[in-house]
Each structure stands twice: as structure tokens, then as C-alpha cells.
């Protein structure tokens, strides 16, 4: 039994499960849109989903909204506008709430950026991945380098809060090429850059037919170079893969990492919701068709379970230790309702191994702990 003194901040996640083409590295819940995306039906389903979920978050203010996918920019701006107005009507959005849309740098999408902004989106996250034609092709992306540049220009013109997603350790990529991608991104002056090490996930095309990616040592050299270049350009790393100019950290993601609450609506969306005496995780049906047909009768919730003490301790750490500056010790009790002393033994071990720093102000991974985060986190897993 846990007891929460106060409920954490709440975010809203909206999943749009379609893509023009499934990328060979992607293990997200995305489906190739064959023919027309059923926008109207899906938006209606999302609204119904949200309405049904309202009792779980009654009276709570929403601090951020994130449209993720899939490719949310496949939604026509009119539909997004409609959806956002319903969200505003149903939920109290905090003043100045961050509202992010993930977008592809394709020509069609780029032409819609201004309209997305007018619909109420105030942060755009562009899935650039690379500016190099060959690497983009290897990644199965449908845009090329020139399109990517044009899209970034248009995004930066339309929004004052832009994130560029980049990947490194791409098939056949050299350190110089990885660095060149980062430089081009920096030159466009976005507020936020995410740089991900390409990982081969199970159940992806790359997993079945592994591409010739740089080895661990080369990838590590790339990572060091990328981090240094970003830092020199004023992008401060605040999470394993996230870099931002001052004050431009992604509030929505930060909420995840600080173990805040989130309601996820849409196919396959996950939620974490706190109540005074329990914390729940929920997942919605993954397949768009099943989701669409299930929402009406409440069959769109695929699983729901309360988190145990052990889950809470580990899952909090799994998120919070991704942050460069970790977390203040009191946050643990605030978010889990449990005393941080329950992790004493594990923390002592992590500290002894040089992976964890702690004082009265904060608990944070050391630089070694950040590089070996998996080793650090495993210490907090139950035996």
C-alpha cells in the first residue's frame, strides 16, 4: 500500500499510428497507411477515448501535450485543429502548455507547418535522422537530404521551438559523416537536438537482416564527438540522447523522466496514472483497426495493472537516472509514495562501483554511470 501526498504533474500523449512507409529500424507501434488514413474516424475515436478516460484524471491540469507516432503530420491540419479544440474543451491545459507535434521532413508535411502552428502546436519535432542521402536511403526514409534541409528551414520559420531528431552509427557511416549531420543541424539553430545511437531492435527488418553498422568502439567515438560539438554550440545534454538550449528542454519528455503522470490515448498508447493510494499502468489496443472498433464499447484498453513497490522503485530509477542531473532525493517519495531508504542497499552498491553520485541535493548518475546506465539500472532490479 502506498500513500501519495500529492499527485504528480500530468501530461497527455496522443498516438497517431500510421506512416507512409514503415522504417526498417522502427519498433514503434506504426502501420503503413495503405490508401487513405481514416482521419475522421480516428479523431472521433481519440475524442471518445479521452472522454472515457476523464474520470481517471478528474480536475487535474495538463502540463503538456505530445502528438507522437507513427507520423502525426499525416493528419490534416483541420483535423488536428478539431482534435486540439476538443482536448482544450475537455481538459484544463496549463497556461503556456508545451504542445509538440512529431513531423516528417517530407515536402507535403513541410507545407503544412504553418497551419499546424495556427492549430495550436507550439513545438515541432522533426524526424530528420540524417542529412546524407545515402544514409537516409539505408534507413529506408522517404525524404532526401535536400528535403530535410528545406523542412528544417520551414520548421524554424514557423516555430520558435523546434527539435531535430538525428541518429548516428548508421550503416556505413564514418565519424566525420556523423559529425557533419550534427553540424548541419546546429547551423539551422533549432532549440533542441536529440541524437540517438541507432539500435537494432527485435521485430524490425534490421533485426532480420542486420545492416553493416559501425562497431561499438566507432559508435562510441561518434558519440563523444557529437556530445562535444553540441556542447560547444550551446546545447546542454540533459538526458542520454537529449540536448537543449537553456530553458528549451522538452517538458513533455522531462515529465516522463521525472516519473510524472501521463494519459496516453490512441492505438497502443501507454498511460501511467497516480491516485492517492495506487499508481496504475495502462495500455491501449495496438492495432489501429481493433482500437477503432473497440473504443465504442470500452474494449480499447488492453491491459491495466497497479505498480508494486518493487516496480515503483525500479521504474522511477529507470527514468530519473537517464537525466544528466538526476533528481532531488525528495522527488522519489513525492512520485512513488515510498521512502528512498528502500533503495539504500542498491544505491550504496552503485556508489561503490562509481556509477552513482548522491548528496542532500541530488541523486545522479556519474559520467561513468551515464555511459553504463544499463549496469547502473540493473543494480536496482530485484534479484
Amino acid at each position: 500500500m502506498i500513500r501519495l501526498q500529492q499527485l504528480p504533474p500530468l501530461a497527455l500523449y496522443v498516438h497517431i499510428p500510421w506512416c507512409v512507409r514503415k522504417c526498417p529500424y522502427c519498433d514503434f507501434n506504426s502501420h503503413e497507411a495503405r490508401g487513405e488514413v481514416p482521419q475522421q474516424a480516428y479523431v472521433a475515436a481519440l475524442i471518445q477515448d479521452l472522454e472515457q478516460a476523464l474520470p481517471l484524471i478528474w480536475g487535474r491540469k495538463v502540463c503538456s501535450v505530445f502528438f507522437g507516432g507513427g507520423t502525426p503530420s499525416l493528419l490534416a491540419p483541420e483535423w488536428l485543429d478539431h482534435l486540439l479544440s476538443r482536448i482544450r474543451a475537455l481538459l484544463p491545459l496549463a497556461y503556456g502548455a508545451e504542445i509538440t507535434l512529431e513531423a516528417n521532413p517530407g515536402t507535403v508535411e513541410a507545407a503544412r507547418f504553418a497551419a499546424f502552428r495556427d492549430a495550436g502546436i507550439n513545438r515541432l519535432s522533426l524526424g530528420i535522422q540524417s542529412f546524407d542521402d545515402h544514409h537516409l536511403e539505408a534507413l529506408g526514409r522517404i525524404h532526401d537530404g535536400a528535403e530535410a534541409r528545406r523542412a528544417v528551414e520551414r520548421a524554424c520559420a514557423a516555430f520558435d521551438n523546434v527539435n531535430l531528431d538525428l541518429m548516428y552509427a548508421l550503416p556505413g557511416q564514418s565519424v566525420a559523416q556523423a559529425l557533419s549531420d550534427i553540424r548541419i543541424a546546429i547551423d539551422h539553430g533549432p532549440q533542441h537536438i536529440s541524437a540517438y545511437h541507432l539500435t537494432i531492435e527485435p521485430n524490425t527488418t534490421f533485426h532480420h537482416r542486420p545492416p553493416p553498422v559501425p562497431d561499438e568502439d566507432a559508435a562510441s567515438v561518434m558519440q563523444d564527438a557529437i556530445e562535444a560539438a553540441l556542447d560547444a554550440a550551446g546545447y546542454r545534454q540533459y538526458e542520454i540522447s537529449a540536448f537543449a538550449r537553456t530553458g528549451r528542454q522538452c517538458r513533455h519528455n522531462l515529465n516522463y523522466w521525472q516519473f510524472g503522470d501521463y494519459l496516453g490515448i490512441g492505438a497502443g498508447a501507454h498511460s501511467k496514472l497516480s491516485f492517492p493510494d495506487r499508481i496504475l499502468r495502462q495500455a491501449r489496443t495496438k492495432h489501429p483497426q481493433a482500437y477503432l472498433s473497440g473504443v465504442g464499447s470500452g474494449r480499447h484498453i488492453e491491459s491495466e495493472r497497479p505498480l508494486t513497490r518493487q516496480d515503483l522503485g525500479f521504474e522511477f530509477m529507470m527514468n530519473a537516472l537517464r537525466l544528466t542531473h538526476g533528481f532531488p532525493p525528495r522527488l522519489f517519495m513525492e512520485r512513488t509514495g515510498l521512502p528512498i531508504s528502500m533503495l539504500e542497499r542498491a544505491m550504496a552498491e552503485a556508489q561503490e562501483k562509481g556509477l552513482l553520485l548522491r548528496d542532500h541535493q541530488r541523486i545522479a548518475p556519474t559520467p561513468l554511470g551515464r555511459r553504463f546506465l544499463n549496469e547502473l539500472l540493473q543494480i536496482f532490479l530485484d534479484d
Partner: protein
Amino acid sequence: MQDIRNFSIIAHIDHGKSTLADRIIELCGGLSEREMAAQVLDSMELERERGITIKAQTAALRYTARDGQIYRLNLIDTPGHVDFSYEVSRSLAACEGALLVVDASQGVEAQSVANCYTAIEQGVEVVPVLNKIDLPSADPERVIQEIEDIIGVEATNAVRCSAKTGEGVEEVLEAVVARIPPPKGDPAAPLKALIIDSWFDNYVGVVMLVRVVDGVLRPKDKIRLMATGAQYLCEQVGVFTPKSQSREALSAGEVGFVIAGIKELKNARVGDTVTLASNPASAPLPGFKEIKPQVFAGLYPVESNQYDALRDALEKLRLNDASLQFEPEVSQALGFGFRCGFLGLLHMEIVQERLEREYDMDIITTAPTVVYEVKTKAGEVLRVENPSRLPEPSRIEEIREPIITTTILLPQEYVGPVMTLCNGKRGAQKNMQYMGRQVMLTYEMPLNEVVMDFFDKLKSASRGYASLDYEFLEFRPADLVKLDILVNGERVDALSLIVHRANSVHRGRELVAKMRELIPRQMFDVAIQAAIGANIIARETVKAMRKNVLAKCYGGDITRKKKLLEKQKEGKKRMKQVGNVEIPQEAFLAILKVEDK
């Protein structure tokens, strides 16, 4: 007694012994077809998979011969592997005859040769049988020639059969009746019964399978086991058909079981003589031997909290396997475990597999080693079963290693590679005999070299055609040294090895190179060194991993990422910690995985 025939079957693995036994039992109506498991004499699951018989069993059968007479046949099963040669010799000692079953296409193999020699030495009548004559590749004439050339028994009138189709099986039984002599023995003389086999039954305790040589044994008789002198009250006697059936007595010439309230298997040793306490025989039957384990290895639970469970499992196995020895042992690297002694490599493998399969144990086994005799400067002679227990070199006067005589039978074309292999294993050739198409090589070889990986290498050097048999010869002084493995400066006791000085540097290099492949990269560099005393003779480094972190982890669905971390952690739990280095289980057997360049 004239109607009794006691016989066993000598055959190489896969030459169809069990199938033939099944047919014989079926033909004599020992079991109805429905009761017939695929191969009734091989009762253990493991045996069935490996196609070998580990514990000898028996069947008392009634056969109506063509002459119209009813014969009482006792088929005594024999184990079919080099590690169990003593059991084989005891089974044969209980017989007047043996069927030598040879695959009509594959020909004679070393194992059968050795067992046949044992049979001939004991005066057992050998009746050759060519099995699998239904196969298109069968070449009976050639195999008959081989039997005569290699074993030296007359084989022109060998019975030809196919146990699989049943063809010729009746002729086999006719040959048993006609060519194997009935037992001799005196029912009126003091009781002498040979223990052919013994095993533990949960309900009645130890069951002994005996061949009564002289005298009569009845329930309520007070018996004495002559090797130990222990006395018991005979509770029950009977025969296996192969189902057990009680009898009122077992008398001279007969084979059957005895139950006498014996609690521990070690009190009813194979080869011992059973006599009556009231009227004992003047001398036991010849041939009893105390069998000593030849091969030793450390067995450790993968997870240290499984130590008690492992001990319980080993104790249960020992209930039915008197040749299994074990005692507690502590390794710095592997924690608490057991030093186990085995008859040979197959025996070790069987024990390992039974622990894993029947007792669901997760175990780490160290590389097998042999027993060394160490003469210290102080004049004592120590038996060293674990390389890490070898005394300091300054205290050692002499180390003696066990030498075996090994007989290898192989087709001519592989003689070259096999001789190269034997020489590389410090073998000394004693004999080479051409026998038709086959060659018999005799070598004296250190057992130490054989337990490592000799079988596998022999198989690959001869494309699987060579067969081998060996027996212990003597302990012989040799220039041996202890090779230690250090991981980040710490000596890993479970990896210590005793090797010949001439091979030590080479072995050390191979071993650390293999270890480097087997130890995963960690957060820091890992140095692997091989040392003799204080001398480092080889070194390899496992370079530090650069990072271990999940690039992308949004709060959304964390379950899969969590599973990944759990899997990584699970993998680590199966590793052993030496200092702060995690060593996977395979690394403890690295020496067996070294490839010859």
C-alpha cells in the same frame, strides 16, 4: 540345470543390441506386445537417447526350441561403454556364452574387441551374430573375415539376422541353445552367488542381481557378503521376465534377484560374492575389484543458493550409482560445490545430464582432470584430484600421472592422422597390427591427455570411424607443472591445470586466447594471464566496453526496455564473479574448446 543357458550380448553402441534383446524377449513371450516399450532393456530415458545401456538388467525367458524341449534362458544385459568395463567383466563372469553382435555393414569396433577378449579370457563361448543384414550396405562376408582376423573366433557359421525385421532371430536362439554350454555348479555345495549388478529401489532398498554358482538361496536365509563381511537376512528372491517374479529359491546355474534389506548400495558391490552365514563358502569367487574413479571434476551450482539442492541430487544419484564419488569443495571463483569422481568421461557426462534433466539443476562443471600421485620431499605420497591443490613445487619430489593402454581400431586410411593425434597427446606406440581392412593401434598414453578432448579429436581425425578402448596401466613419473590462470591479477582456482612442461607455454597461450573470446567485454579492461609459478607465460586483454545504455527510452512503454535489462541481469547472474570480473560458465571449460591449429 541342463536346460539353462546364461548368456549376454556384446555389441558396439548402435549395432543393435537392445533391439535384438527386445526381439528375443518378444519371441519368448516375456512381455506382451503392448507392454513392450520401444526397447525394454534400456530403461532410463537418457540411455535410450544415447543408445547405450548403463545399468545391466536381465530377463529370465522360456524358449521352446525346435527340438521340442523347453529351455530356460537368462539374458544378462551388459553396459556398452569403455567406462564400465568392470561391470561388463562381471556380467560376462555370470555367463557361459555371449552373442557377439556385429553390424553387418559397419564391421568390428574396438569396444566389442575388448569385451570379446574379456569373454574369451573368462572361458565364455562367443557366438558371432551379424545384425542388420537387411541393410543394402550389409557385407556379411567382409565382416565375417574381420571377426576372424581381429577377434580370432571362428565366424563362418555366424548367425545372420535383422533384429529390426525379426529375420533370423529364431536362429539366434537356436544357436544359443546349441552352442552355449549349460552352467556347471553344485547345488549341494555351500552357497556362492556373484553380484552382477545392484541398484536401489525406493520401496525395498537395495536389489542385487546375482548368478548362483553353487548352492541354493532361499528367503529367510542369513546371507553374508564376502568382501565386506556384512550379514543380512534374505527377504525375497526371484527373477525378471523382465517383470519381477518371486521364486521360492535360486539354485546353482540360475540368475535372479535378491532383496535382503540392504540400505546402501556401497554394501552390495558388483563382483562381490554372496554366501550363507551358517555354511559359508571357503573362498569368494575371483575377480572382485574395488573400482576407483579415474576422472574428477568440480560440479558447482550456477546459483549459490542451489548448493543444498545439488547435494541432495548427488546423494540421490549415488543411491543408484556406487561408482559416483563426491565430496564438498570450495572454490574462490565458483563458491561452494563438489569434487566428483567418475569412472570416465562418459560416466561424467551421464551424471551431468541426469543432474540437469532429472533434478533440474543448473551446474557449472570444471574441466575434467585425473588423479596424480605426488611424492613430496618429506616422503609422503599424496593423491591430488584437483590441480589447484597441487603442493608448492619446492615441496614436490616427483609427480606421477596415470598412464593407460589404449587400443584403437580404425580403417587403414586414417592411420596417419590418428598417429599424429596420439603422438601430439604424448602417446607412445606399442603395437600396430593390420587386420584385413582395419588397423589396430596400441598406445600408452597419459590419461590426462585423453580426458581433455581426445575422443572428439579422434572422431574428427578418423571421420568417426575409429573406435577406442582403454585400461589403466600404471602411475608414471612425468615432468608436470601447474598452469594457473589469472584474471585481473587474481588466480582463478577453478581454471588451474596440470600439464606437461613441454606443452605448458603453448597450452597457456591457447587457453588465454580462448578465454579472451569467451569473456564478454566489461566496464574495464580485463587482463587474462597464464602463469607457471610466478612466471607469466601468456597474456591477453579483453578491452573495456565503451558504453552500455539504451539510446531511446521514452516513458511511454517501458515494459520492453525493462525486460531487456532483466535479461541482461539474468545473463550476469549466470556468470561467476572473480574480483569484479564476470566470467561466463563456458570460460571454465575453455580448455576443452581450444582448437588445435
